[in-house]
């Protein structure tokens, strides 16, 4: 966890890099790219489920940020602004790939009780150790991919990337209560889906 001081230094440092980049310093912009390209790729991959699309999103998002740097007012963090660009690009890619053209961050397909837990068996004490690293990775990918885009985007920004509810709301153009509602449902749905792999089981049992 970053200390408050470290966080403040990072923000000041980021602002200096953005100012330098605005005046045409390419090296400063390159540093911003190196700082955030991993995060942007992960977010894009989670939304699009397609590596080629995710790579395009990273490139388009950074180029768009570079071209429109003048428009960045500094009212929010550069990273928040960048993620917002990337999420929009990623949703556009997803729409193009899917026959359903209505994909949006507002997509909210579940009813209130759609998240009521049905599976309440306890999990193994160390569920991650039930599977090898690569098998575990496949389970986690498959499980999160099953969530509606609006839910998984909120979950990734909040719980994987560690952004605040307010930052997530700002990035996605949603209200804070809307973010909280999606986050709750995303967490409960993931929990429900992972339960079949991680619940305490007798030897010989196989997940369905």
């Amino acid at each position: 966890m970053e200390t408050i001081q470290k966080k403040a230094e990072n923000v000041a440092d980021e602002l200096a890099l953005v100012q330098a980049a605005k005046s045409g310093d390419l090296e400063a912009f390159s540093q911003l790219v190196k700082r955030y390209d991993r995060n942007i790729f992960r977010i894009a991959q989670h939304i699009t489920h397609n590596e080629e699309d995710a790579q395009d999103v990273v490139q388009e998002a950074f180029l768009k940020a570079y071209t429109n740097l003048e428009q960045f007012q500094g009212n929010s963090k550069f990273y928040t602004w960048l993620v917002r660009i990337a999420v929009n690009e990623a949703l556009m890619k997803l729409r193009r790939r899917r026959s359903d053209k209505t994909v949006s961050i507002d997509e909210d397909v579940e009813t209130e009780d759609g998240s009521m837990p049905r599976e309440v068996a306890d999990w193994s004490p160390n569920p991650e150790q039930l599977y090898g690293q690569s098998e575990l990775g496949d389970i986690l990918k498959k499980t999160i991919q099953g969530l509606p885009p609006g839910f998984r985007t909120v979950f990734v920004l909040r719980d994987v990337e560690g952004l605040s509810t307010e930052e997530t709301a700002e990035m996605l153009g949603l209200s804070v209560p809307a973010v909280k509602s999606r986050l709750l449902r995303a967490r409960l749905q993931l929990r429900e889906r992972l339960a079949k792999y991680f619940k305490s089981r007798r030897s010989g049992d196989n997940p369905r």
Partner: protein
Amino acid sequence: MKCSEFLTELTDYLDGSITTGIRVELEEHLQWCHECEVVLNTTKKTIEIYRNNQLYELPDGLRMRLQEAIIKKCKSVKSCKNPE
């Protein structure tokens, strides 16, 4: 407190953004409701597992392609400094 009310507050409880009064009520509920305790613990575990396992690494060559694309873009504007 009913289980459905517990669930409504679950996200704020996990994030520590909850008033003391509600936290006390939730913790009282957990004293007797094993099912909500399991849901709480396994939801917490769900978040931890996703946080601990980064599923996607930056593909080889992407960073370089990105730099090249930005240099190209930079060269197309007059104010560009140090493009190499």
